[in-house]
């Protein structure tokens, strides 16, 4: 009798393992950091692309009801596609769009904006990429929608789509 119970437990144990592995197959094995909404946007100081003046992110955010911070680079291919979407957004609304230029050369960034337009009210630079890391970003492009208290309302990883834009427009109304 003891032997039977032991084997039964053994079978149940392996069935459990089987089920876990089976379910595990559906999970993506690539990790994306969880979208932590309602976290606070970390303050940073940087230089403006054109004027070279130093700005504090807090000042910019506090003075606007909503701010959209877009991390971009001239060498990033999806950023080119996203740029027209941003241009539309800047024309349709009066949302304060701030650019964070990631690991880029000033000349290339300026050329990019000349070619595709400038939707940004201000562009701060992140030459080493460490400001982006302190914000919790890890790639380009990434976009944050903030309120005036620096709370992150929405975070978008990857280029912005039309759907994202509609969502943003709804929120800022």
């Amino acid at each position, binding site marked *: 009798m003891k032997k039977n119970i032991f084997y039964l437990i053994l079978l149940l144990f392996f069935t459990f393992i089987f089920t876990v592995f089976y379910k595990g197959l559906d999970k993506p094995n690539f990790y994306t950091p969880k979208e932590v909404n309602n976290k606070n946007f970390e303050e940073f100081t940087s230089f403006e692309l054109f004027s070279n003046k130093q700005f504090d992110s807090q000042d910019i955010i506090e003075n606007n009801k909503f701010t959209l911070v877009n991390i971009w680079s001239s060498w990033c291919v999806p950023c080119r596609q996203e740029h027209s979407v941003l241009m539309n957004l800047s024309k349709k609304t009066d949302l304060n769009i701030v650019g964070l230029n990631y*690991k880029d050369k000033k000349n290339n960034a300026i050329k990019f904006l000349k070619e595709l337009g400038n939707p940004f009210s201000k562009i701060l630079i992140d030459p*080493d990429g*460490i400001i982006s*890391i*302190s914000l*919790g970003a*890890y*790639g*380009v492009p990434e976009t944050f929608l903030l309120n005036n208290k620096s709370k992150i309302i929405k975070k978008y990883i990857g280029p912005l789509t039309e759907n994202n834009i509609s969502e943003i427009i709804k929120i800022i109304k």
Partner: protein
Amino acid sequence: MIRLIKFISLILFLILSLQKLSNANNNSLSVDKISKNLRCLICQGQSVYDSQSDFAISMKILIDNKIKEGKSEKQIYDYLKNQYGEWIVYDPEFNKKNLILWAFPLILFIFGGLLIYRKVFIN
């Protein structure tokens, strides 16, 4: 009886040594040491130390800055875990959800020891 005591003390020694090893910090705090313990978010099979992706390069500069600011190793790991989740550090924590992870091999070891004890000492 004496044998049992010797046996248990062997096991206790091993467990205590584990504690010592995990608590002790190496004196040198270096970017290399910390980045070897972090996973790269872009090339997810590599550590930040090994990876040459933009993220990894920026990360190394960030760690360097934090060390210069005087932050301890634990503070740096906590900061990064807060930003990116526990996944980013290769060293799993000692908390409730990782309990089975740490305990399973040790419990198995003690169980094996008991089996041997039975085989050898009990007639």
